[in-house]
């Protein structure tokens, strides 16, 4: 199964927060929800802290042309 996306994790977290906000749930259950929420927070924080932009270049049909007005060329991609 695919890892849940950031968006899905945020949605799950928001759902937990909303449930707790609404109240009227037994204490034990609310603690369980809180723990789930805390785990989601840790996961999201981990994603935010460890993320590094990945760049991939597709094969285009163009030659390695130079466009004089378009500034300097970027450094080559590491690991691609």
């Amino acid at each position, binding site marked *: 199964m695919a890892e849940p*996306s*950031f*968006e899905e994790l*945020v949605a799950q*977290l*928001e759902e*937990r*927060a909303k449930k*707790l*906000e609404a*109240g009227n749930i037994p*204490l*034990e259950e*609310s*603690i369980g*929800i*809180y*723990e789930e*929420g*805390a785990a989601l*927070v*840790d996961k*999201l*924080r981990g*994603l*935010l802290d460890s*993320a*590094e*932009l*990945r*760049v*991939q*270049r*597709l094969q*285009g*049909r*163009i030659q*390695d*042309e*130079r*466009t004089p*007005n*378009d*500034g*300097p*060329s*970027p450094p080559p991609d590491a690991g691609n």
Partner: protein
Amino acid sequence: MEPIRISALVHLLKDILEASEVLSDLWVLGEVSNASRSRLGHRYFTLKDDDGLLRSVLFRDDMPGSMVTDGERILAHGRVTVYPQRGELQFVCDFFRPEGVGLQAARFEQLHARLEAEGLFELSRKRALPAYPRRIGLVTSPTGAALQDVRNVLAQRWPLTELVLSPALVQGEQAAASVVDALRTLAEDPALDLAIVARGGGGSEDLSAFNDEAVVRTIFGFPIPVVTGIGHETDTSLADLAADVRAPTPSAAAQRATPDATEVAAQIRALDSAMAARARAGIAARTAQLQAAGARVRHAAPSPRRGAERVAALSARVQIALETRLAAERAAVERTDAQLAALDPANTLARGYAIVERLGKRRRVVRRVKDVKGGNRVAVAVGDGAFWAEVS
């Protein structure tokens, strides 16, 4: 040979002319004479030069409200046909501009009008961008500054994404076909959730690739939202108008395409704190309830005691969770301190910006031109202090 009927002949001529690709989509340059408007709103006129003339019509639904004027030299777009009832050659014009506009500008305006009428620029057709994009396609020059700009913004702002570069020529004769190609290649990637089409500013103001009909249509018909960041100072390109979101530069496009990780982290922190507060409040309320119950029920009922033990256990769980939170919180606060400093308005003012506040009964910060009227007194805060001024 049997005689051919006149109506058959003129219709045959009409069919021959209308089958010609050149004659069904062309620009002509001529001087207007005999301009008149029919009761139905069609405009009839003659276009001529030194050595020839062409009866012309601009039907009611094309450029309604515009009138050609005798003596005016115009660039007119349209097709050539035969008007069978009179056996006359006729130029059916659908767009015209004064000659002085120049062919390139006239072409642009005609395409603009046509695509607009088709609904390619409708705001209601614009799609919302994904909240947290995972895979962003980028069409730009592989050697240009735009690529670097987009990379930098994404790395800083939302590194939780993959950037897929689909290289294209962005200037020159082959640019339009190259951009269409690059977009089509991207469209084959099912995991992509957003595309950026970018070109750096630089010296050239040649936007022709981004005013090309095929490019505009490809952007409009793209399966996922498109953000343009085509650096140029003055005009908006048709590609910009067809995109779901247009930004003035490649960096701005990357910015519009992504959330700010710092803000997202702050939102998560806020949810976290709210949940923790709720959990604490729940424990406190239950403890108070049990104490009240214990005070009321004197005899040895086991349930409040069991309840108290349960609450104590839960409380310990929450305590541990809270302490973990707190440690993470502290680390997060330290990390964001530096980022917050960058947001401090004082730093912005020191860079040469100013905050303008309207004085008087309804004192408020001026955000747009209509917030002030002539004669209003305003206070202007700059890096090292403030002064007063009057709006003229």
